[in-house]
């Protein structure tokens, strides 16, 4: 399915947020995920099913003041 991930189009070959994180090579990293402007908590990554056209944000901590 086609998603927008971090502002760019992405072709997704899975079902859940966990699948997407794995596809992005980010499994095990500390991050937060938002789908269509709603946070998907870590506890729901395994069960939250992504849909065609979903907008996903994957964020992490970086240096800042």
């Amino acid at each position, binding site marked *: 399915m086609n998603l927008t991930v971090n502002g760019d189009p992405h072709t997704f070959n899975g079902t859940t947020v966990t699948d997407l994180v794995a596809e992005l090579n980010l499994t095990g990293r*500390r991050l937060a995920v938002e789908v269509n402007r709603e*946070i998907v908590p870590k506890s729901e990554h395994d069960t939250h099913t992504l849909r065609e056209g979903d907008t996903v944000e994957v964020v*992490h901590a*970086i*240096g*800042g003041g």
Partner: protein
Amino acid sequence: MSEDLLTIAGKTYASRLLIGTGKYKDFEETRDAIEASGAEIVTVALRRTNLGQNPDEPNLLDFVSPERYTILPNTAGCFNAEDAVRTCKLARELLDGHSLVKLEVLGDQKTLYPNIAGTVKAARELVDDGFQVMVYTNDDPIVAKELEDMGCVAVMPLGSLIGSGLGILNPHSLLLIMEQAKVPIIVDAGVGTPSDATLAMELGCDGVLLNSAVAHANKPVLMAGAMKKAIEAGREGFLAGRMPKRVYANPSSPGEGLI
């Protein structure tokens, strides 16, 4: 000084220096500078993960661990309340439910001056959602009181523009804010030198948050240690109570027994 602890949202800290993680040369320097600073509260920003990155690429929090430090996520780069609130919710999720956040809603890119209307709006929404909000603001005592009254756990007036190193330009305004405050007042933005930090503490501020002053020094780790001492010196000077200023001289040596 073991009894003189900084209390924010019910948690106590021995260090009154809060430090940022931005603009260092690399993660090693970040880690070393923070260690030299003695800071216990460390700010971070939230940004999109680089996709397609090397899975072994280290992350900031590998070098500045949430086990060791109180990580304070900020809303840097947010120019409206909605983005700031969204960022705080993501931060809370990222940090396993920790709800202490540094709120900043900026007005423009050139000055990074706080947009007060947006700041007040975001603060209210975040406090209502259970966040513990440390709020970056200007040096307006009316705004400071409003932010405190709505439940922000600390108010953080700027000393001068973010990253400017211009120091404490508004000592009188800070005094007005501190006179009325019942929550910690932490100067955030504009500190450039150790003496700037000392001045803020001598005025009675509860703490200082700085980043550029250390990261943009020629020798950041050395400057971090200097800032630690500067803030301790300023705090002790404040608690010691300065000598009065006088119009005329007052000799230090006795007048009797002159030959």
